[in-house]
Structures are given as C-alpha cells and as structure tokens.
C-alpha cells in the first residue's frame, strides 16, 4: 500500500473539469469587458460606482478557482502528507472575507451619501472629455444592460458543472453570477429615478447592491468555514448531507464477515476522505489484507471517496 498517493478524477469528470476551466476563463474575459464598459460610462452615479465594484468582485471566485486548480494537482509530498486539495477552501475563505469587508465598505459609502443628501449630477455623456448630445443616463443604462447578460448565461452554464464536480467555489461563483442581473437592474432603477427627479433613488439602489454583495460574502464565509471545520460531506447546492456514510454501511454490511460498520467522513476540497470503523467476525485469519480490501471496496462507491482508512475495532458503541 502506498501512503501518499495522488488523486485523479475519473475521465468523464476530467472532461467536465476542462470545460469548467474554459468557462471560467470566458467568465473572466466578460468580467473585464463589463468593468471597462461600466467604468467608461459611470459618471457621478453612486449606483454605477457600486455596480462597478460588484463587477470587480466578480473576478474573485473564478480567479480563486483557476489558481486552486493549479495548486491542487500536486501530489502529496513529505511536507504535505495530506496533499493540497484543501488549498481551494482556504483561498475561498480568504476571498469570501474580502467580499464581506468590501460589502461593508460599499454599504457605509452608499448610506453616507444618502445621509449627506448628495444629489447626483448627470448631464450629457462624455467619453474622455468629449461630449455627445445624449443624456449620460441612457448610456449608463445601456452599459448596465450589457453587464446583465453574460453573467446570467454563464451562471446557468456553471451551475450543473458545479453540482457534477462537487466544487463549492464554482457553485458560489455560479450563484453570484445568476444573481448578478438584479444588481444591474437595481442600478438601472436608480438611474431612471434620477431621470424622474428623485435624487435619493441612486443612493438607495447603491445600498441595495451593497447589501447583495454583503449577503454573497456572508454565504461564502459560512460555507468555507464549515468545510474547513470538517463538516460532514454535503451537497454543493444547499446543505443536504450526501448520505455517503449510509451508503458505505449498507454496502459493507452485506459482506458476511462484517458485523458492524460506522464511518466518519469529511470534505477535503472536491474529494472526501475519512475513517471507516469495522467489527470483523471472529476467526479472521488475515486482518491486514481484509482491511485493505474493504477500503478499496468502499472507495468504489462514489467517485469523490478517496484515501479512506479502515480501522478494525472490537465493538462499536452507539
């Protein structure tokens, strides 16, 4: 038995992963075009500023994901006997904390412009000081409509991949993308409000956007923290347990020489590891070989299961 073995995805998942990586690069490209468009048109609108920040934050999950994909490929080594698969969770936690801080900053900024009763001035559209005979608000709305479309489409494409690959970072990214159109819509409402003469509409829209960013951040922090705290394996979407413990027990109890089984599993990034405690029937001649067989058998039950340790015990108390 080899103690430090690397983990390879099954070939079908590997294909999905390559597609996901391509999708994340496309995502980054669109984020870049959106940021440039919004930046060039934002003027003095508070809501546009917040939409710009939100679009900038949209870089974080794909960047973390792509970075982690490089790190996690490394096999376990002497210094890191458990491998690098958790790097992604750590990076994700850091990114999520950054998003929370940024959301707070955005909220304070918009609330203060509301309290200071700042009236946003929006005149004719200017590109690099060159004026055009059109209200800048219309151009902003155009930019925001553009900012709505790619994230929603990409979010819907990423969601099934996140489920299939068991990637919580990818799921968080897809979820953020899917909800992104609402922040653009809020900014559009804010600008239409300015057009109608409601100076506060802009700042209120900005506050709504920052609340959404804050909500995203808090969700991600919770998810990353629970995973790092060895929560039992759950589905990437929602908090439903995967039920792998029951699956293992069911399969192993069918073996005539196993009297009792209980397992303790945890997520290590996209893979799941842990211990299986078994009570073997008395009279086993080669316990060492049998235990190895049981471990191999358990690992075949789900593609995510990896590096399970089987521990023979006398009795299991419940």
């Amino acid at each position, binding site marked *: 038995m080899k103690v430090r073995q690397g983990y390879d995805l099954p070939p079908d998942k590997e294909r999905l992963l390559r597609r996901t990586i391509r999708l994340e690069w496309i995502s980054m490209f669109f984020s870049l075009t959106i940021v440039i468009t919004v930046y060039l048109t934002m003027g003095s609108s508070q809501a546009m500023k917040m939409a710009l920040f939100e679009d900038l934050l949209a870089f974080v999950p794909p960047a973390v994901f792509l970075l982690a994909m490089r790190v996690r490929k490394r096999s376990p080594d002497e210094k890191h006997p458990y491998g690098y698969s958790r790097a992604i969770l750590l990076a994700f936690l850091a990114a999520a904390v950054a998003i929370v801080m940024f959301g707070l900053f955005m909220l304070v900024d918009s609330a203060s412009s509301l309290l200071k009763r*700042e009236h946003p*001035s929006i005149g004719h559209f200017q590109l690099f000081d060159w004026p055009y*005979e059109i209200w800048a608000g219309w151009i902003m709305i155009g930019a925001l409509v553009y900012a709505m479309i790619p994230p929603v489409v990409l979010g819907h494409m990423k969601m099934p991949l996140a489920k299939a690959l068991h990637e919580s970072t990818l799921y968080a990214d897809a979820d953020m993308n899917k909800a992104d159109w609402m922040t653009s819509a809020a900014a559009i409402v804010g600008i239409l409000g300015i057009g109608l003469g409601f100076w506060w509409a802009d700042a209120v829209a900005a506050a709504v956007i920052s609340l959404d960013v804050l909500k995203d951040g808090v969700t991600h922090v919770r998810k990353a923290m629970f995973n790092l705290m060895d929560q039992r394996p759950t589905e990437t979407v929602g908090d439903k347990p995967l039920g792998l413990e029951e699956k293992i027990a069911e399969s192993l109890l069918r073996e005539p020489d196993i009297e009792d089984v209980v397992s303790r599993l945890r997520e290590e990034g996209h893979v799941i590891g842990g211990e299986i405690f078994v009570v073997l029937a008395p009279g086993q001649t080669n316990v060492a070989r049998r235990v190895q067989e049981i471990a191999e058998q358990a690992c075949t039950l789900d593609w995510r299961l990896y590096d399970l340790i089987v521990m023979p015990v006398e009795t299991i108390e419940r």
Partner: protein
Amino acid sequence: MPLAGLIRSALPLGLMLLILTLQGCDHWPADPRDSLTTAIERGTLKVGVVANPPWVKITDPEAPTGLESQLITEFARELGMTVDWRTGGVEEQIEALKSFELDLLIGGFTAANPWKAEVGNTFPYYTERVLIGSRGTPPSAIDGQTIAILPDTNLAPQLRKHNAISEIHETLADSPNPVATAQWRLSGMGFASSSLELLKHKHVLLTPPGENALLMELERFLFRNRNQQQLATRLWQEAQP
C-alpha cells in the same frame, strides 16, 4: 425557465410605467428641486460670479462682463430670462450653489475644481492650452532659453521643469524672447504658437448639485456655442482693457 418568464412579463409592464411617468413631466432628466422651471417662471436666473478675467470681470457688480458672463446672458435671453447677478467669495458662492440659493456659478472654473463631486459641472466647453509662441518661427525646444510670461500666472515652475528661465513682463506683444501664454492670447497678438504645451485648462460652468434638467439645458446651449475659434476671439476681445 422562470427568469425568462419574469423578464417577459415585467418588460412590457415596466415600459408602460415608464411611458406613463415620462408623459407626466416636462423635463427628462428632471430637477429634484425644480431649479429650471422655477427660474423660467420667475423670469430671472440667479447667477453667482467670481472675478476671474477674462472669464468673469466685475467692474460693475450689477453688470459683470467677461466671456462667461456674456454666455450666461445669452443663455438667459434664449429662455426669456434676465440675470440676477450675485457677487461674493468662492467658498461662499459654492455654499450658496449647494443649498440651491444660486442657479449657476461662473468664474473661470476648470474641470479640476475641488468641488466637482459636490456640485454639477458642465462638460468642458473650452479647452485653454498654454503654449510657447513667438513672432516668427516658434522654438521647438526651450532648454536654457528665456521665456517671457505675464505677471500672476503659475507658469514659472512649469518653465523650470523644462529648464527654461522665466521673465515677467507686463505686456507680451513687444517681447523679443519667446513667450508662454494661452493660445487665444498668442493668436490675438498674431504670434505663431509651437506644439509645446505647458498647461491645459478645461473650462466648465457650475450648476446646483443634481439639478439635471438645468444642467442639460445649459449644456445644450454650450453645444451650440462651443466653436473654439470663436471663443478664443471673444476671450482676446474680453482681455483688452
């Protein structure tokens, strides 16, 4: 897909709502404090002036002259208004503009003004370029040269950066050395200007914060009156004593 359904049902509704509200108002975008409508009904435009020749000259506080004062008088006349001029210090005037006591504020302000986030700024209607010029062929480099400048300018440090020596003259027209001054003054004096640009000032007019109908109306006026050549000629005329 529920999202597409949502958009499909919300879009016509939103458009109808938008058209309904648009019909109900005179201006798009509207003024939250109705500055434009109130001024037109009152028949006077309250304009703050800060002395800054040749943009604004206050020889008579009742009738300031200068390029911007003239432009505003024309703007008010087009809308059937007279101008109620208010003189005062810059900060006092900015405060008055921020509290909607004034409809406009002029005084040779540029796009780099420190209040740009607090009040409304028009687009830059005139770009003043400070160039090196001379009678005859202007120099292409000014390293080590003596350059004549007018008093009360901030050009001396700029010239030092180019390793040139600045010399203050009351008038530039008879200077034997190359001069550094605004392009409109160079062409007014009949000097040739080089492409050496020392400074660039983008001139703007100030409006009350968020009064977008007024801002748009003024900018529409500026669109019609922003021929740089004509403005340069007018500036030269205003600069004559």
